[in-house]
């Protein structure tokens, strides 16, 4: 059916070879090209927000009422946490422990998402000019969100924690059981390499262990919703519901070490 002429093959091979060369020798070309899309993406994101606000008015109204009630409760908890924190500082000084310095953060807006289905990533509107570099950790107010994969001059790409190629060393806050949390390209995470006799239970809070480079210890990752055994029977896994709603992120914070 197809008559593959030699000329066609040669021209296609030349074209493909050129593109591969381009991809191999000039990796920063994708980083440079994303700069062109920054302002169109910002405009489209703003439009989306406005239209979303109109379409989901009733849902937003109910959520607003619910959040107002929750904020009162959280203010009380915050006061208690502040008291505990002050007591902690005093006790640490007494025991001459080294104080953990709080990390510096930069806020950024999400202006786009990955155009394909094979990676969970965001595009944000801050880049190298704001001090962001590849590998920096990205969080939100609720917990860990991801990591900077590429940093251009004024935009960056963030790989989210539900990407299967991003692994974070984590522990259960209750039992201190260690494991590795990876993504499923969906709404849940998987904590793997748990021993068969590991102490992990439903509703356990999972936090970062601090063993993975650049991830501060204690960042909330999520809660355990299911525990199961691997097919081999040699280890267990836990399904985790992320603390951060990864499909609805609009602002993020980047930790500057």
């Amino acid at each position, binding site marked *: *059916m*197809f008559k593959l002429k030699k000329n066609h093959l040669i021209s*296609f091979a030349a*074209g*493909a070879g050129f*593109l*591969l060369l*381009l*991809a191999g020798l000039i*990796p920063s*070309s*994708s980083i440079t*090209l*994303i700069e*062109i*899309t920054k302002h*169109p*993406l910002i405009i*489209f*994101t703003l439009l*989306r927000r406005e239209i*979303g606000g109109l379409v989901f008015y009733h849902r937003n109204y109910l959520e607003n009422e619910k959040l107002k009630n929750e904020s009162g409760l959280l203010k009380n908890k915050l006061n208690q946490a502040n008291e505990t924190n002050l007591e902690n500082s005093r006790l640490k000084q007494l025991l001459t422990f080294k104080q953990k310095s709080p990390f510096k953060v930069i806020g950024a807006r999400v*202006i*786009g*998402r*990955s*155009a*394909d*289905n*094979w*990676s969970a*990533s965001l*595009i944000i509107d801050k880049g190298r000019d704001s001090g962001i570099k590849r590998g920096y950790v990205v969080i939100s107010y609720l917990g860990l969100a991801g990591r900077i*994969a*590429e940093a251009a001059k004024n935009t960056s*790409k963030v*790989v989210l924690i539900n990407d*299967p*190629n991003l692994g974070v060393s984590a522990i259960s806050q209750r039992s201190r059981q260690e494991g590795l949390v990876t993504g*499923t*390209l*969906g*709404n849940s995470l998987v904590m793997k390499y748990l021993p068969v006799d590991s102490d992990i239970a439903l509703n356990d809070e999972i936090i970062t262990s601090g063993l993975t480079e650049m991830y501060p210890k204690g960042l909330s990752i999520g809660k355990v919703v299911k525990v199961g055994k691997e097919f081999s029977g040699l280890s267990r896994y836990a399904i985790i519901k992320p603390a951060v709603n990864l*499909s609805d992120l609009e602002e993020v914070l980047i930790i500057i070490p």
Partner: protein
Amino acid sequence: MKNRVFFGLIIFCALIQSVWLDYFSIFSVKPDLLLICAIAAAAYLPKRNALFFCFLSGMAKDILCVNNFAANTILFCLWGWLVIRLSKEFSLEDEYILIGLVSAASLLNNLASRVFFFYAARQIPAGIFFRIMIIDCLYTTLLAWVVLKCYQARPGLTLFLKRNDENQDT
């Protein structure tokens, strides 16, 4: 004029795919608008223009992804070239043939992406891969069918494109 329309359409689809399509995702899978643009360009435009627009669609998708750069650019050009070769064997006027081409391109694109992942040492578990591949293929095919129906329901647009075709033939 047709080229300008396609150019604007590809840029628009790239921005839509990155910003708005998440609202319409099924099991976190969204359809591939840019692939539909590439196949449509290959089916309706002259060879050189079609390959350029396939290249542009692939490039737009690569810019907005974190995967291997140029993977989609090469693949979209390849699918465009294959559609052009097929168009010389038989007519692509029938809507079912076009839908079938989009479906096949989506399936092959996902399978070929897996090869690129091996090259880049990116591991995606088999269960997740098949889930995304099947939903992506079905959703993209469905969207292509909807887009084609909308295109056919606009007689003014059809006449405009046919007139341009006749001008280019003469």
